[in-house]
């Protein structure tokens, strides 16, 4: 990047808020996605919406790519600056702007850490439910750009269900406000909904109004072990069919359980094929009733062991297995590739089986865990980036996993986003016409293609793998 352009940025935000040393460029060349890396030209930290607008205007004039970045924990290479340009940070824009108890909203800047928001509102007996696993370090801006999910999605929905309004800077530098502290608002297109999950490709979000709900009074946790996959899957369907919507309903397969036990030695049975962890929150009496009912349903479907936690401490213990699943798996091999193929929850058993078959076909280790109640699975491939031949097989296997999910009425990504990683697959899900209209929207917003270029839309769609019938 030419020195005079760097100077233009410095004029806006001050010298120390423009980073461009060798070390800093390298440190902003990646996110949490294995195997993706590209250097930006500089890293800029604006302090307010007006400064963002000035930066965007320069980028638009000189056609410089601009990549907004929170904590860089995303799993689809959505924040890797693969076309160079400016990485935009929100480390200064991380404040609480307004807390409104009458309208039950909180207004925050995008750099605020998700867990800090939760902690703040919970002190006031209010609740912001979306809880992506990375919430301790993820920023709310990143959550909104990715429309992040989490463990509580089944009952409470995902990030988009809690965003009421946004302030955003358009690629031409103009500032717009969408939505507001309103329960109802049908004035024109729902731009809030459009921007949530747009992965930084349409506009830069600079302020967010979030909806809050009353904090549930209690919660209760239970687990169940099964010696067949089908039994656990049927339990999931049956719980929902019995009109119970638990706050979480998580699934671990045998490989994951083995890895957790190997790592934690917490006495999990390694003889079982699947494990479910369920949690309900709300009024004490109904919570207890629901958890007991879920245990009964699990037993009815052949659970070989069930247990309800007696207190918060035991609940934490029971949830350990799910919490450490990814860490435990990641310790087995140098590289961990985590996917989030999602199917209707009724298809969970078929999907897990297909994943196993695909893993066998390509001679790979793929363990699966995830949000069973949402049909949102995390097939996790344990591999080694240095083994080029194996990485090729991983790619082929992932292609088949996406294909399998789509055949079951699912999607290529449930909560991680498309980013650069899944861009070549997007058309598989949305079709040619879907892709064309999405591209049209992108072009209407960003004719110069400066906003996080190369994300969501790939140069070309990957060839679909040969369709196979599901056994």
């Amino acid at each position, binding site marked *: 990047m030419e020195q005079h352009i760097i100077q233009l940025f410095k004029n806006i935000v001050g010298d120390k808020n423009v*980073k461009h040393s060798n070390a800093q460029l390298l*440190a902003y060349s990646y996110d949490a996605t294995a195997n993706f890396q590209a250097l930006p030209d500089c890293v800029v930290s604006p302090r307010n919406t007006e400064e963002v607008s000035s930066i965007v205007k320069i980028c638009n004039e000189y056609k410089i790519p601009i990549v907004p970045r929170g904590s860089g924990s995303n799993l689809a290479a959505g924040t890797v600056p693969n076309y160079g340009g400016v990485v935009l940070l929100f480390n*200064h824009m991380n404040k609480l702007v307004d807390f409104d108890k009458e309208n039950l909203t909180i207004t925050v800047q995008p750099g605020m850490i998700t867990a800090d928001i939760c902690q703040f509102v919970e002190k006031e007996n209010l609740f912001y439910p979306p809880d992506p696993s990375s919430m301790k370090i993820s920023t709310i801006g990143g959550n909104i750009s990715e429309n992040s999910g989490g463990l509580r999605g089944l009952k409470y929905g995902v990030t988009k269900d809690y965003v009421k309004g946004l302030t955003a800077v358009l690629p031409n530098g103009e500032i717009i406000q969408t939505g507001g502290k309103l329960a109802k608002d049908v004035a024109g297109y729902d731009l809030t909904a459009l921007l949530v999950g747009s992965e930084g490709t349409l506009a830069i979000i600079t302020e967010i109004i979030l909806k809050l709900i009353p904090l549930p009074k209690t919660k209760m946790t239970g687990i169940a072990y099964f010696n067949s996959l089908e039994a656990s899957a049927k339990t999931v369907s049956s719980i929902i069919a019995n009109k119970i919507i638990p706050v979480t309903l998580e699934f671990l397969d045998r490989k994951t359980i083995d890895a957790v036990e190997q790592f934690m030695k917490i006495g999990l049975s390694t003889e079982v094929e699947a494990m479910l962890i369920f949690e309900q929150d709300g009024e004490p009496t109904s919570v207890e009733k629901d958890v007991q009912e879920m245990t009964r349903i699990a037993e009815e479907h052949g659970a070989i062991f069930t247990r309800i936690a007696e207190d918060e401490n035991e609940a934490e213990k029971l949830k350990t297995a799910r919490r450490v699943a990814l860490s435990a798996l990641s*310790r087995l091999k*140098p590289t961990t590739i985590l996917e989030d193929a999602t199917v209707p929850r009724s298809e969970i058993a078929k999907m897990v089986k297909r994943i196993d078959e695909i893993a066998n076909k390509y001679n790979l280790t793929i363990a699966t865990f995830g949000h069973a109640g949402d049909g949102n699975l995390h097939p996790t491939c344990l591999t*080694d980036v240095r083994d080029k031949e194996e990485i090729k097989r991983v790619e082929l296997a992932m292609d088949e996993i996406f294909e399998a999910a789509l055949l079951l009425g699912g999607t290529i990504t449930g909560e991680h986003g498309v980013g650069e990683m899944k861009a070549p697959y997007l058309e598989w899900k949305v079709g040619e016409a879907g892709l064309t209209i999405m591209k049209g929207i992108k072009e209407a917003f960003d004719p110069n293609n400066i906003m996080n270029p190369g994300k969501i839309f790939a140069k070309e769609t990957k060839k679909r793998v040969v369709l196979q019938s599901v056994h």
Partner: protein
Amino acid sequence: MLRKQKREWCCKVSTNLLMQKSFENHVDEALLLDCMRCGFCLSSCPTYLHTDQDEAQSPRGRIALMKAVRDGKVEWDSSIEESFNLCLGCRACEPACPAGVQYGALIEQTREAIQDVKPQKRLEKTVRNVTFNHLFAEKKDLNKAVKLVHFYQKSGLQKVTRTIGFLNLFPPFLKEMEKALPDLPKKVEELAPVQTSNVKVAFFTGCLMDSLFKEINEKTVQLLKLLGAEVIIPKEQQCCGALHAHSGELEKGIHNAKINIEAFDSDEFDYIVNNAGGCGAFLSEYENHLKTNPDFSEKANRFSRKMIDISSLLVKLGLLDYLQSHPKSEAAVVATYQDSCHLRNVNKVFEQPREILKNLPNIQYKEMLKADSCCGSAGIYNLLQPKMASEILNTKMKYVKEVNPAIIVTSNPGCLMQMKVGIHKEGLSNQIRAVHIVEIIYEQIK
């Protein structure tokens, strides 16, 4: 001009290549690949938080830099060196890491790799710089130094300084810490045993603790004797080597490790106790450093297995039960505890010191916010990176003031001095005092 440019270019290229080769030799690729870049370490890293969240000053950033240098993907320059230098080595990122990345080993290997290519002996260079350019540059400073020299002689530090290389660092260190210096050691009253036990304890005395804080060491012995232990101090022991290892002189650190392992290798000892968190962590890692050495692997394993910190040992020997016999006082004063990073993050000891404090008769224990976060002392870090160390200390003092304690309790000499400096800087010397955990226990039960 052109020739000069060419020479500079050649020099740059060769440093680059040498650095890459050195990283290949020293930095374990498998350890680097353990990092999956999830970023869970970020919020635990003091330098990340004190640089307005500069990723280049985070554990994830540093690991990415190590890998990039090793793979030849980034040109070596001062910004990269600074990123590694600015790391406190507090290892708070390790408990935060879901993938079990051994960051402590990686930063040690990195510093060794750098030291190999740029062998200016950072320790010596710093000592020289501070001694000649600061300490002796002004008469006023020199006067202070003379006072300090007097202190050296009286405290017996001078003698130790000659035998242990690392203590050469002391003139500048003491200059900074002048106001925080402890009084000359007083005679420590002996405590009569309250119980018998057959436990034999070998005491690793540590260089700082055995000189500047000799009184604390004597009290340590008395507390162990009180609970019926027999204490032996092996004469041949040396500096633990942690500071060497953390500054890129791993070989020297390992050299000391071998001497210490021999000095303590006896079936007689049930435990090897230390009262300095910084030493304790490195001592307990001797086995990792020597696991491929056929002559030492077994002995090192024995050594590290017996290693224990003073708080844990006192609890094991029944201190909490003994304290039950002391009724809680109405007029208890507020005390808070500052974790020793290495005791907490490496040896995972943080409950025992707190349990002890909660059970002391005249203490009302109050936890401060982020007690588990580094105070900025970090071995000799406060000397090498005074600006960052001072910012970190300021944050620490902010949390101290929220608790408003009469006493800050520590488990490591570096932390102890740093907290004393912090108290002095804030003008709180009349209200707050910093002590080692051994001192407060001794004081309360005497």
